[in-house]
Each structure stands twice: as C-alpha cells, then as structure tokens.
C-alpha cells in the first residue's frame, strides 16, 4: 500500500515537473518565468533549511550567511575574472568549500549548546558576515553592491529557468534519498529525542554537524543561483530577512516534509508578488511585510504542521476513522 502511495506521489511529482518544463514553451510570460525561477531558487534554500529545522530540530537564525557566501563568491568571481563556464564552476567549488568549512566550524563550536543559544549564535555570526560585506569595500563594494556579467549559456531567461528547475528537482531527489537513508533516520531520531539517540550509541554532535554542513552547502548553491538570476549582489543577501523567508517557507509548507518547503517557497514568492501588485490599488499593500507577519502568526496558530503536515494529518485521521468503523462492524 505504502509502495502504491509512493508510486502515486512519484507520478504527481513527475507530472508537475513535466508541466513546469513545458510551461515556458507554451505560455510566454517574462514575469511568470522570472517569478518561477525565484520560486525554484528559494525552494532549494528552504529545503536546505528544512534539513536543519524539520529533520534535525536545529533552529538557526543565521542561515542567510551561507546564502550570502554563495551569492558573493559567484559575484566576485564573475566580476574579477572572465565570466566563463570554467570560472563559474570554480566559484561553485569555492562556495562548496567555504560553506562546508564555515558550517563545520560553526557547527562544531555551537551545536553542543542548547537550541536557543545556537539560534542566537548563528544570528551573531551571520551579522559578522553582513558587517564584513559592508566594510570590505574593495571586494564587495559595500552596501551598494555590484553588477557582474554571467557566462553566455546563462543569459537566456528560459535556459536559466530550466537550469534552476533541474537544480531544484535534483536537490529534492537527493535530499529525499538522504532523509530516507540510515543517516537521515538518525537525524530524525535526534529531532525527537537527543538523549535517547545518544544512549543508542550515536554521537549527536557528529550527526548535527553533518546536517549543518549539508544544509550550508545547499544554501550556498541557492545563493549562487540567486546572484546569477539578478546579475547583481549586495549586502541584502546576508540580512535576517533572508533567513526569516526560509523559516516562513518551511513552516507554512510543513516542516520535515521537503515538498512543503517547495510549496512554501511558491506561496511566499507569489504572495510577495501579488501584494506588491496590489500596491497600485491601495498604499497599505506597499507594506507587504505586515501581511507576511499576519500570515506567519495565523499559520503558527492554526496550521502548526504547515500545509503538507495538515493534509497528512487529515488523511491519517480519515484512515483511523475507517479502521475504527471497520472494527465496530466486526464487533457487532
């Protein structure tokens, strides 16, 4: 039955993927294309956050630092050197190394602490990166940021849309496998009960650091795509707003589900777009952040499990009722 359900879900994923691949060829809308590209990029970022929050139970307020490292690395490489594919690949490699190193060292130093201390410390370190980006003007051009050129193959919007889509699908498939592996099960066990996992013989810190590194690298990748999509980078990539977006996307979609992070990214990006459009109707919609705040409060109050989590819960309750009814029938 589970296999059947799994096959059905895979069929749905496949249908959605095919639809998204075909979309730019049948429906020409530059705005939609750019919007969906942003959704794919933030979906990768939100999935990376879900590995921390949803699968390992780690709350980070500084996830933007990895996003920013990716964005600045590609920006600096494309600005300082020729915007060629080999240089782009080199910048990806450097991003992987930098994000892995930062997440490893940070994880090793802070993941021993209780979750709220970790959350505060990551926020402080992310703040340091923001200050570094503001002050190291010779490289980062400070708050103003800088524009850069990208390799020819990334110039076409449709091509870049497809690259982002394929990247999102690849990350989703990879993380699905990762979370269903024995290592993924240990991470989920840590989320449920750290002490119990430790007394089964697992070094909790070791596994948390693995989750932190995987999450950091993927966040860096999404930062690279984000900077390329804008062909511009400034200090906003290190701000708290970016982390809060990931938090919001993960919680609204459903923590610990991966697909929820994608749905959450879609909802937030589209809501952001629509609310900005509504500014033409009434000025209040210019302050779209207020509406995000309301959405966040309502989501936490009424859908603490997020969209996917709530749907799963409804489905599970239905099944349980069916089982109970079947039991009553047999008894009578």
């Amino acid at each position: 039955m589970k296999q059947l359900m799994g096959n059905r879900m895979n069929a749905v994923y496949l249908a959605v993927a095919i639809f998204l691949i075909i979309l730019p060829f049948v429906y020409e809308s530059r705005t939609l294309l750019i919007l969906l590209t942003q959704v794919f990029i933030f979906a990768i970022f939100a999935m990376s956050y879900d590995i921390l929050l949803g699968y390992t139970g780690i709350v980070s307020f500084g996830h933007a630092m990895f996003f920013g490292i990716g964005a600045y690395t590609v920006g600096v490489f494309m600005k300082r050197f020729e915007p060629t594919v080999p240089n782009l690949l080199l910048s990806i490699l450097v991003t992987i190394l930098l994000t892995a190193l930062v997440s490893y060292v940070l994880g090793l130093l802070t993941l021993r602490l209780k979750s709220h201390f970790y959350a505060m410390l990551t926020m402080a370190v992310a703040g340091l990166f923001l200050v570094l980006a503001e002050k190291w003007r010779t490289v980062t051009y400070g708050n103003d940021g800088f524009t850069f050129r990208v390799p020819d193959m990334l110039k076409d919007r449709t091509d870049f849309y497809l690259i982002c889509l394929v990247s999102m699908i690849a990350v989703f498939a990879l993380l699905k496998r990762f979370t269903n592996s024995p290592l993924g099960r240990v991470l989920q066990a840590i989320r449920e009960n750290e002490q119990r996992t430790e007394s089964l013989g697992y070094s909790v810190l070791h596994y948390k650091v693995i989750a932190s590194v995987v999450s950091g690298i993927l966040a860096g990748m999404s930062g690279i795509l984000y900077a390329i999509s804008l062909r511009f980078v400034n200090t906003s990539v290190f701000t708290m707003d970016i982390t809060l977006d990931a938090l919001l996307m993960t919680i609204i979609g459903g923590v610990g589900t991966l697909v929820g992070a994608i749905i959450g990214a879609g909802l937030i990006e589209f809501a952001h777009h629509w609310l900005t459009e509504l500014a033409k109707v009434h000025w209040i919609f210019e302050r779209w952040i207020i509406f995000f705040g309301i959405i966040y409060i309502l989501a936490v109050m009424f859908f603490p499990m997020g969209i996917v989590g709530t749907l799963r819960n409804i489905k599970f309750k239905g099944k349980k009722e069916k089982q109970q009814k079947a039991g009553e029938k047999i008894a009578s």
Partner: protein
Amino acid sequence: MTVQLRLNEVETHIGQYHIIQGVSFEVRKGEVTVLLGRNGAGKTTTLRTIMGLNPASSGTIHYKGEDISRLPTFTVAQKGIGYVPEDQGIFSGLTVEENMKVAMKNDNDSTKERLELILVLFPDLKKFWKKPGGLLSGGQKQMLSIARAYINDNDLLLIDEPSKGLAPIVVEKVMETIMEMKEKTTIVLVEQNFMMASTVGDRFYIIDDGRTVSNGPMKLLKEDEEMRRKYLGIA
C-alpha cells in the same frame, strides 16, 4: 562469578541538587540485579549516571574493569550497555521498523536472529511494523523500547521501571520477556512492583535517600518483612 559492573561511592548532582550521595553496588554476569527504593530515592538517576546522561560528580563506575564514569553517553552505549528509560523514549515520528533500524548497531545474523525472537515475543510490533511509534499504546511502546535495547548484542541492559503505568496483563508479558532476556544478557532492573522484581531478580540493592543501604540475594528480601516495610513501605 565475574563482576560486570561496579559502582563505588558514586555521587551525582543535578544542578544544585545532590541526588546520589554514595551509591555502591556490583552486578554479576548473567544475573538480574534489582534496584529498589521509594519514589525519589535516586534509582533512575543511578541508571542515568551509569549511562553518562547525568555524569557522576565523584566516585567510579567500572564496566568490565574499565572506568566509564567520565565517558560520554554514546561511548558508554557503544561499549555494550543498552538502556530502556522510564518514559520509554521511543521516537514517535518514526515507524516501528525505523525505530528498530535506528537502534541496530549491526545487520548480521545474530541481529536477525534476535529480531525474529523479538517479533515472536512481541507480535504487536510486527502488526504495527510500518506504523509511527506515536500511535502505539503504552504497553506497545514499552515493548518497542525493550525490543530496541535487546536487538543488539548488549552485554548489559539497564531497564527502568518497565511495568510503570501498564495493565497487569502487559506487566506479565514484560516479565516473561525479561525472564527470556536473562538467558542471554545481564540486567539491572529498577522496579517499584515488588512482585515483578522478586520474580525476575537474583540480587537486590535498596537505595534510600541517594545511598545504597542494603543488599543481598532476592530470597533474603522476600523473607524479611521488616526490611520491606522499612525501606519499601510494603509488608
């Protein structure tokens, strides 16, 4: 008989509270050693101290001759000590199968044999194999918790109040299982249910106010009504 575990004048603080104030006991290989005492005497903290969850502030804990009192919890577990906590500690978001897989240290023939035995002892686990642990009843959760500790070739099992909050029929089942496990593993059992403790136990230690105050073969305690009344509040 070989001594597998030895605690010598162990003291444990939790925050500012001095919970264990001098616990000493020996666990002999192949026996079930029962820790008895009133509520709040320090029995659970003693087990947690052995596991390193509440590290000892002084004294020594030797397991197979090696001092484990300063080791982190996961290293203690890796040395072959299984722990079944009082609150069962199952992972409610994981299925029964995943709970078992997380606990398995190896996937060898011995583990498979043990798993077969577990599923014979606890058929309910087989029935709910693909269901989340959170959906199990209290008794089933206790069975899963014991099964998880028993799946590995642990030489020593620390079991904390396995009968707590369970229906008498389930308690009987748990007792049968402990008797079965006794054949293969040394057990330290914390238990309030004296009937169960006296049935499965070979040796007893009474802990009172964080100190071991009496010990001996279980037979002795069964016959000594005065001691039972004094330390356990039962006749």
